[in-house]
């Protein structure tokens, strides 16, 4: 039961995958000697060689497109896009090919590909370093999209993503890279497609993912002091979406608040709210509230705090929802 951060847990997941499956490859910008700008690939090139772990030129479409060709040749590519905002040049290869190849070939050519993308805001990064790209991927039929909230689940989800026969977009919440936890790194536990209930409560259901999970838990603690008990659900898997768990929880409680960093319009909150209405309409006591980033480009560092959902905003939304 060693002490781990999300960075070291992800590094271990890659290490274990490279050891267990000789067909896995790790590549991307600066993943070699540098170990990636966040050190997630630290030491991997040294230990597994330049053929299994290698740098690429700065060519995101090329990186994603090579994944398609490598998968066709029987490899299992694990590619890194350096930042959320730099995954966009690869969108055409991801949308037009990675997501469609299996369908195009009637299932004959699967795409066991993982694309890792350090994502989301909260680290006072420059422009393009705080993007929440999940909607672009989650709306694209044929992709799976997962977002770990803590180090232990990051290990589990990455191992499962690498073993998955379908393409997985793996979004890593940068702002949660460094907090330490202790626990066992294992693939046992909820798989891709399952959400996790992290807290029970009969006043309201809080739904979040990535860095927002910690904020939801913190908000729930605050609210508990005034006797407002919130259930907290960590989505983990945006696609497939665990509609059963979310719907069941809201049917019990009748109230829900969804939280994400991405802009309001067509953020995951829209889909969750729509699903909750479909799943729990008769039990719903209040409209599902969305606590999200506003519909503007991600701001410079000094306005980040205003942009990101805060514990205060979550608490407020819950109070409004409970009082509705």
């Amino acid at each position, binding site marked *: 039961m060693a002490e781990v951060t999300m960075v070291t847990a992800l590094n271990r997941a890659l290490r274990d995958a490279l050891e267990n499956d000789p067909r896995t490859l790790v590549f991307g910008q600066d993943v070699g000697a540098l170990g990636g700008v966040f050190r997630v690939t630290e030491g991997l090139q040294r230990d597994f060689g330049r053929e299994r772990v290698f740098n690429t030129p700065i060519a995101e479409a090329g990186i994603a497109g*090579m994944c398609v*060709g490598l998968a066709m040749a*029987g490899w299992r590519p694990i590619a890194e896009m350096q930042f959320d905002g730099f995954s966009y040049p690869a969108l055409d290869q991801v949308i037009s090919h990675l997501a469609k190849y299996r369908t195009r070939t009637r299932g004959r050519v699967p795409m066991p590909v993982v694309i890792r993308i350090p994502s989301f805001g909260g680290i006072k990064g420059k422009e393009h370093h705080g993007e929440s790209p999940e909607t672009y991927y989650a709306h694209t039929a044929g992709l799976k999209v997962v977002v770990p909230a803590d180090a232990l689940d990051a290990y589990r989800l990455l191992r499962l993503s690498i073993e998955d026969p379908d393409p997985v977009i793996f979004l890593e919440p940068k702002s949660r890279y460094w907090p330490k936890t202790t626990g066992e790194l294992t693939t046992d536990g909820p798989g891709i497609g399952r959400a996790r209930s992290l807290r029970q409560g009969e006043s309201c259901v809080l739904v979040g993912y990535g860095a927002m999970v910690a904020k939801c838990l913190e908000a729930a603690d605050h609210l508990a002091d005034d006797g407002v008990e919130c259930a907290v659900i960590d989505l983990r898997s945006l696609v497939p979406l665990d509609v059963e768990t979310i719907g069941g929880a809201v049917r019990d409680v009748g109230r829900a608040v969804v939280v994400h960093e991405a802009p309001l319009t067509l953020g995951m909150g829209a889909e969750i709210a729509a699903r909750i209405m479909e799943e729990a309409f008769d039990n719903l006591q209040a409209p599902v509230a969305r606590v999200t980033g506003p519909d503007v480009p991600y701001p410079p560092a000094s306005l980040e705090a205003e942009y990101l959902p805060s514990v205060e905003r979550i608490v407020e939304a819950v109070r409004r929802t409970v009082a509705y």
Partner: protein
Amino acid sequence: MSLSDIADDASMVQLVAPDGSAVGDVDVGLGEEDLQALLRLMVRARRLDTECLALQRQGELTVYPPFEGQEAAQVGSAFALGPEDMVFPSFRELAAAITRGVDAVTYLEYHRGTWHGGPYDPVATGFAPICVPVATQIVHAVGWALGAKLDGRAACALAYFGDGSASEGDFHEAANLAGVFGVPAVLFCQNNAWAISVPLEEQAAAPIAARAAGYGFPGLRVDGNDVLAVYSVTRAAVERARTGDGPTLIEAMTYRVGPHSTADDATRYRTDEEVAAWRARDPIDRFVRFLSARGVADEGFVERCRGEADAWVDEVRAELTALGPPPSAELFDHAFSSPPATLARQREELLGDG
């Protein structure tokens, strides 16, 4: 790039002149049977292309992109490959497909609209799915070639793309990656002078082949209507790739004699004179003249080829027109290895079954 420019392009590899006379070393290591096979394939391809236009008019195919005039470029290059190699086509490579042994009827499911670009088995046939977003397939070829290299296989990826496709960023990323990783790949550009209605001079200000130098590997122009020249330069590039010497860029100068597709009206952007001038450089006529001059194919042989092609195309038509739409279930069967619960529910709602 006008015809005269191409005709006088000294740097362009040409072995057989339009009149069928040898102008280079025509001993490219092919025996009589291979030479006859090349002609047979080009005749079949031409015949199938004509039939597809008819099938489209008759409503048996959706929009169809004819390749008339490009038979030598496609057959000559695909003929240089072995079963261990992999082709990454664009959307106009039906002649290359049948040269690789892809079943024509299965391939045409794509143009019939009964399935997407991968109705045949890409891995078994060594022919990747038909790829519509231009230039994207070149990157796939480089990835596949890198995989072959990592496996230590003496195999080569050949990507087909057009003159217009070479303007896409993906062409550059693929070429640069190919150069940096030194992968066994052939970047085969069919420069047919037009990208729909956009002429070469509005597409690029220099020969496509001239770009190779910037990527650190050889690039050359070949007469794309000279099947022997196309075969020999491709063969050399494939050998080079298989022996670990890295990629080659080939620019085959050819011409799309027909419209861009059955939805296109080429008279809006080019003259009949231009088309006529290129018909005079017809790749099949040229090769027939060459072979008959050498006594490898007489009138009778050519007639037999045509007869065989007719018979074969009749079968293709019969099988193809019998093809119905796929079961609705296929709408849901292939997106994921196993459909997630949310998708299973959508399937149930739409199809009413489990």
